[in-house]
């Protein structure tokens, strides 16, 4: 199989074949049952059987196509999916199947503490109060009348790691709780000016309108870049991602970008909510736990080749994403000899601060057993650590938050690619 096809071929989702809806199967159908030829998403002709794949005419140039529609759907041949956790309080982005750096909104990772609320945007309101001269209630349309700003950045859950993963683990399960969107809304600074925030204020509480009424305290250091956003990749924010409005705290742990935002209370001290004491804190050396360590440290992961790809001897384009909550990615390095030597990978423009950047590196594989891995270097000079260095600095009992060690993939003689298993204890 050509490597490009392998990139789009996820064994996991291939195994759980979905029943194609009758409507999809009928779309443009030529009436022929059995095996037909069709054009895959990559433009290559593929054989499709009527059993598990949608049927399409053998030659699309001989049949008038579907007419214009009100809302576009992806090709019935495409079936990328998030993987949901057992409790369905989270789902992860299929990093290994995406291209470029923008995450389709329908595949953005989810994490919620009491489900996704159903909210009527016309009834939703945002109250800003506390240390302000004019406590104000904004409707969603009020927010849209204020000067708009857009920003492309990642949001990553600070628990984004699968520690005791077996060899048969995808990049999605290792690091799929990071996703990237173009967000549009109002700068927090604009809102604080509208309500006359007290210059002496130093913390604010952001609160969601979900059944957890989730709250986080945000220190002033992050206010300049923070936003209240109503759009994601050009359309309204998805319900799972905070519809109709969410807080956006670029570069910081996802939980502080409070979704379904309903209230901001301006204050001069943190509120010490459960999500910043019991959770989202990490024991560090000295017998204490670190709190409000909001920034996501630099990280990267190779998305191709990775489990469950298979590769062939010869040239392989290694691809992946790198990101840092502290600013721009300065470099991404790839090792194809289990960390002994490192080469600079090419970075794809644009290289935006606090954003996923795609890297590529051509590597000629000799077909022998090896481990490939990547590390991110950000503009502060920080180098993504190995698991051993990370554990040395943090301690084995520090988990599960803010863990960003290097991920390795083992290329086995014969071509199978598996996750390079790590010992954590």
């Amino acid at each position: 199989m050509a490597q490009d096809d392998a990139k789009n071929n996820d064994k996991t989702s291939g195994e759980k074949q979905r029943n194609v809806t009758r409507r999809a199967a009928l779309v443009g159908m030529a009436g022929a049952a059995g095996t037909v030829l069709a054009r895959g998403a990559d433009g290559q002709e593929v054989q499709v059987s009527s059993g598990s794949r949608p049927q399409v005419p053998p030659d699309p140039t001989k049949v008038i196509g579907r007419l214009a529609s009100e809302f576009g759907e992806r090709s019935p041949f495409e079936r990328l999916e998030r993987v949901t956790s057992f409790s369905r309080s989270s789902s992860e982005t299929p990093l290994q199947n995406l291209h470029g750096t923008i995450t389709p909104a329908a595949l953005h990772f989810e994490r919620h503490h009491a489900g996704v609320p159903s909210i009527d945007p016309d009834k939703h309101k945002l109250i800003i109060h506390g240390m302000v001269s004019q406590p104000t209630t904004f409707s969603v349309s009020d927010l849209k009348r204020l000067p708009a700003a857009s920003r492309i950045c990642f949001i990553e859950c600070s628990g984004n790691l699968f520690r005791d993963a077996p060899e048969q683990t995808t990049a999605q399960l290792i690091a799929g709780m990071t996703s990237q969107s173009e967000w549009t809304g109002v700068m927090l600074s604009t809102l604080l000016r509208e309500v006359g925030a007290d210059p002496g204020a130093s913390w604010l509480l952001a609160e969601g309108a979900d059944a957890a009424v989730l709250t986080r305290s945000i220190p002033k250091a992050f206010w300049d870049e923070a936003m209240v956003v109503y759009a994601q990749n050009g359309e309204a924010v998805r319900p799972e991602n905070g519809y109709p409005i969410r807080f956006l705290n670029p570069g910081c742990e996802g939980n502080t970008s409070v979704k379904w935002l309903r209230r901001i209370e301006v204050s001069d001290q943190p509120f010490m909510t459960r999500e910043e004491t019991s959770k989202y804190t990490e024991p560090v050396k000295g017998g204490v736990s670190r709190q409000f360590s909001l920034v996501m440290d630099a990280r990267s992961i190779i998305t191709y080749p990775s489990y469950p790809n298979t590769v062939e001897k010869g040239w392989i384009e290694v691809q992946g994403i790198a990101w840092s909550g502290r600013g721009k990615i300065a470099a991404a390095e790839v090792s194809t000899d289990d960390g002994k030597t490192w080469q600079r990978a090419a970075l794809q423009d644009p290289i935006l601060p606090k954003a996923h950047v795609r890297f590529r590196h051509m590597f000629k594989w000799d077909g022998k057993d090896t481990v490939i891995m990547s590390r991110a270097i950000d503009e502060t000079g920080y180098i993504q650590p190995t698991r051993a260095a990370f554990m040395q600095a943090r301690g084995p009992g520090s988990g599960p938050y803010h863990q960003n060690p290097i991920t390795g993939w083992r290329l086995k003689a014969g071509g199978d690619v598996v996750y390079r298993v790590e010992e954590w204890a």
Partner: protein
Amino acid sequence: MYQVKGGTMPDRAVTMTWLLVICVCVMAGATFAGEDDEEAVVYGFGRPATAEEIAAWDIDVRPDGKGLPAGSGTPAEGAAIYVAQCAACHGAQGEGGLNDRLVVHSADEPFPLASDVNAGQHRTIGNYWPYATTVFDYIRRSMPFTAPGTLTANEVYSLTAHLLHLNHVIPEDAEMNAQTLPKVVMPAHGKFRLDDRQDFKEVH
């Protein structure tokens, strides 16, 4: 930021409006509204929030007790409510349920250390929560999981008292109210440090 809705104005009026804008700008020696101008402007969108709507949502409680409502409760009162509304998910004595464990005695399991291998390490009220007010705040906003926001202030004080007692933090007869709760010193008090990393080149 100007809104000019051509569709609602006759063409001549639009032209006149623009002429006026240009004249004003020229007279003021200004260019179009840039960031500097935006800095100074308050647009006045939104409406004043009423005291009632703020009060209805302002349920947060700070460690100094700000935000605690009137009311009170004891561990004994809380025990009865706990059996009816919490035990099914958190276990009869706050452990062994399907959901989060709520009881750890710090004498048996002290504050978790980063240096310990964390297999089976528990982090909850008795050994990890630094403030008693957080227990009140969290139960009031998020619990019981399937019916959040339904407990009265007295019930939340009672449940908070019960859980603090089960965790060996307060005696059986201690009453929790807006004065006593902020004074409770938790076993994990003083064991949290604000992120103080300076050199970002370091792994830490």
